[in-house]
Structures are given as structure tokens and as C-alpha cells.
């Protein structure tokens, strides 16, 4: 453990460089640059709002806020896990050349997405105020889902990045899986309108839904469903432990498959 902390300290600067690189390169050679982290969720929110209010007649004033809370969290989860999945392979040149603790690569994928995610919360703040969803004391609860979703992504990412070294198909499989998770996360519909006794387990099993639900409680000013909180935190902890185990067991064999 002490060794782990020492080596983490030594390579912390490398980690920050990796994170910086991923954010920088994502927006390089686009005219608006980092502004896209704000613009992109705003535009998709507008599209979704128009589609769902005009076509399906769901006309409530706070609907855009509802969409944004779900979509921002989900986009972070899917984007960061996909980045982690690809991270080992995309840094093959470095891995083959110089020794660096290998978990730095998936971790940097998660962290860089987390940074852009936190920036994009500005959009949520502005839209909330415009649409009359004002902050209450309940908002402080938001810290909990914001922390839990990070570890949820980290645990998932560690597992995915390990398996993806040995099976390239995983990239496509995970793309499909995240789509399923998206529809089971109640991003643009209200759970009550869809959930029945027969299918409510889909939401209950989905830790991403739990995180989103908690986050919405905080934003809209109400107590969080602590059952969901406990479930999401438990799943995250289990995934991080499992991911760390799987990753460290297999990391020495990565280089043979790159």
C-alpha cells in the first residue's frame, strides 16, 4: 500500500499531463474549442425538448432541467467508460516503451471526462435558473451522486479496459450495452409514466438510474431516495474492487497483446 502511494505520487504529474492532453486534443482544431462542452449538451437538450414537448405533448416548464440532469450524468458515464475501454490500446506506444503504472491510462480517460462533465454543469445551472428551478438546501446532496458516479465509471472502466486488450469486440458490445443503459435510465421520460410493477426492476437494477434519480432529487429540491443511494454506492465499491483486482492480475500480459 505504501508503495502504491509512493508510485502514485511519482506519477501524479504524468497523470495530470495525460488528462490535460485528452481534453486539449478533444477540442483542438475546432473553432469553438472548449465551449463545445457547454454548447453540445445545450443543443441536444433543445432538440430533445422540442421533440418531446411538440410531438408527445409533455409540456412542463422544468422539462429541460429534467432532461439535462439525466443526460449530463449519462453522457459522462458512457463517454468515460468508452474512453477507459480504449485507453490501454490507444497508449500502446507508451506502454511498450517506458514503465508507468498502467492503471494511469484508464484513470486518465475517466478523469478527463469528469473534468469536462463538471464544466458542463454550468449549462445545467443556467438552464435551471432560466426555467425557474432555484437552488435549495437540498442541493448539497448533489455531492453524493457526483462522487458515486465517478467511482461507478472508474470500476466499470478498469474492467472494460482489461477485457478490451484481449478482445477488441468489446468496443462494439459496450456501445450497444450503453444504449440499453440509456433507455433504462429514464433520461427523457418520467419513470412514473413508464414503470409498472412488472418492469420496475429494470430501473432498480440500474446503478446509473439510481445516480440520476438522486441527482434530480438534489436539483429539484427534495430528499434523496436513500435506498437507491446505498445501492449505487455499493455497486460502485464492488466494481472498483473487482476492477482493480482484474486489472492488476492481467496488466503484465497487456504488452503481449498490443
Amino acid at each position: 500500500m505504501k508503495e502504491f502511494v509512493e508510485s502514485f505520487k511519482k506519477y501524479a504529474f504524468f497523470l495530470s499531463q495525460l488528462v490535460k492532453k485528452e481534453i486539449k486534443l478533444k477540442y483542438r482544431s475546432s473553432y469553438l474549442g472548449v465551449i463545445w462542452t457547454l454548447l453540445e449538451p445545450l443543443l441536444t437538450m433543445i432538440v430533445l425538448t422540442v421533440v418531446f414537448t411538440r410531438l408527445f405533448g409533455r409540456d412542463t416548464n422544468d422539462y429541460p432541467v429534467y432532461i439535462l440532469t439525466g443526460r449530463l450524468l449519462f453522457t459522462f458515464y458512457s463517454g468515460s467508460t468508452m474512453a477507459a475501454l480504449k485507453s490501454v490500446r490507444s497508449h500502446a506506444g507508451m506502454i511498450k516503451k517506458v514503465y508507468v503504472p498502467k492503471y494511469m491510462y484508464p484513470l486518465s480517460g475517466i478523469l478527463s471526462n469528469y473534468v469536462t462533465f463538471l464544466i458542463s454543469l454550468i449549462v445545467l445551472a443556467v438552464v435551471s435558473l432560466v426555467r425557474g428551478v432555484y437552488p435549495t438546501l437540498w442541493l448539497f446532496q448533489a455531492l453524493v451522486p457526483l462522487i458515486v458516479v465517478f467511482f461507478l465509471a472508474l470500476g466499470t472502466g478498469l474492467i472494460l479496459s482489461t477485457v478490451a486488450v484481449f478482445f477488441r469486440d468489446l468496443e462494439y458490445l459496450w456501445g450497444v450495452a450503453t444504449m440499453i443503459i440509456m433507455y433504462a435510465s429514464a433520461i427523457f421520460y418520467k419513470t412514473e409514466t413508464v414503470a409498472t410493477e412488472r418492469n420496475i426492476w429494470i430501473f432498480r437494477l440500474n446503478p446509473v438510474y439510481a445516480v440520476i434519480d438522486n441527482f434530480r432529487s438534489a436539483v429539484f429540491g427534495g430528499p434523496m431516495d436513500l435506498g437507491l443511494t446505498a445501492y449505487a454506492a455499493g455497486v460502485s465499491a464492488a466494481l472498483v474492487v473487482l476492477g482493480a483486482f482484474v486489472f492488476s492480475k492481467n496488466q503484465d500480459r497487456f504488452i503481449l497483446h498490443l
Partner: protein
Amino acid sequence: MADKETVLTVDNVSVKYRLTEEKVDNLKEYVIRFLKRDLKYKDFLALDGVSFSLEKGDRLAILGSNGAGKSTLLKVIAGVLKQSEGEVTKTGNVVPLLELGAGFDMQYSGAENIYLYGSMLGYPKDFIKAKYDEIVEFADLGEFINMPVKNYSSGMRARLGFAIATVVEPDILILDEVLSVGDAAFKKKSEKKIMDMFDKGTTVLFVSHNEDQVRKLCSKGIVLKRGKLVYSGTANEAMDFYLGKNYQGNSQK
């Protein structure tokens, strides 16, 4: 000799590759083959029980024909590749000059890569900042330093890689035929830098097929053959053994 400190010990190191006869890297194929019990493995020993140790200031030449395991040995010592058996103990910082510039990010400019690459080698931030000008000056890339590395020639990449890697004073330097980097002028400069390190008593591991360089630069030598250490002695003796009938005659098979 007893008062000299040992900086590198390679103890009975083996590297075993498990090769599937055909490369299976997608799930469908793996499952089908697994069910048909058609996963054939072949074990291949890239290194087979290699042991040696170096004292501070030793300059070791590693000789052997292609595929004898020289690069594998260097990768194990650099810590990039994990040995299947045995132990490597090293003291101080190891600087590998292997495939210079292979870890660069192509989209990144030269200047940005100095920080990225330097941090990857474990240099602290302040150190890179302090040495930044020195690196830029040594690489001598002119205005290319602010352009993406993808626009560099391979020689320019190698120059930058060399400049970053050699800005520290390593305790153990690993050289894989890199004394011939860049154009004539840079070659001279890089050779001088390496000679300076030699003079300062850096321990060096050196892979080369260049007879003159080995005889001139190295003090010790080992010869590898199909992963096994077959000779160990002074650099001159090792070179003689490597060039002799005993080695060359059999390696043709």
C-alpha cells in the same frame, strides 16, 4: 572489486511467451475455438534462465544474432516487460533509449510532448520546467518545436526523444543501437553526450552489432543465443566468441 556497489542484478530471468498458433483476438472466434477445443498454445522462451550482475560504471555489451533475446532482455530491465520467472534488482534511475520517440503523441506539438514524455519518464514538473530550454536547444528543431509531431521526420522525432531522455543523469543507461541518431551534426553531438555519461561512471547496457563501437566502448560482454546466455566475459572476448565459428556456425540452423 568488492568495494564497488552492484547496481543491477539479473537473476535467473526467463520470459515465456504463450503464443496461440493463430492470433485469436475476438470473442466469437475464441468461444468457437474454446468449444471445439481448438486453442493451440505454443510456449516460446524468449529468455531462458539468464543471470548476470553489473557494478557501478560497468559497460556491458549484449551480443547475439537477431531473435536471440537482446531486446527482450532490455525490455525486462527497463520494466516494460515482466519476466515469467526470476528476479531483476536495480538501484537508481534507469533511462531507456529504446525506439526513440515511440511514445510521443502525434497530435501534440514538440513543446507539449516534452512535458508529456518527461512526466512519463517520471521527471517532476519543476525539473522539466528548469530543463525545458536545455532540451529545446539540444534537439535543435527550430520553429518545428511548436508544430505537431506528426509533421516531423523520423530523424527529428529521434532527436527530440534523445534530448528529453538524456537530460537526466541516469544511473543505468540502456542503449539499443541509438548512437546513430539524426544527421551527421546531431550524431556527433549525441555521441559526445553519451561519452560524457560514460566518463561520469554511468552503468551502460549496450546492444549493437557494430564491432568497433563494442570494442571501443564496452568493458564487459555477454552473448545470447536463442534466449540462453552462452558466454560472459570482457567485451573483447565476448565479441571474439560472437564472431567465432562456435557461435556463427550453429546459429544458421
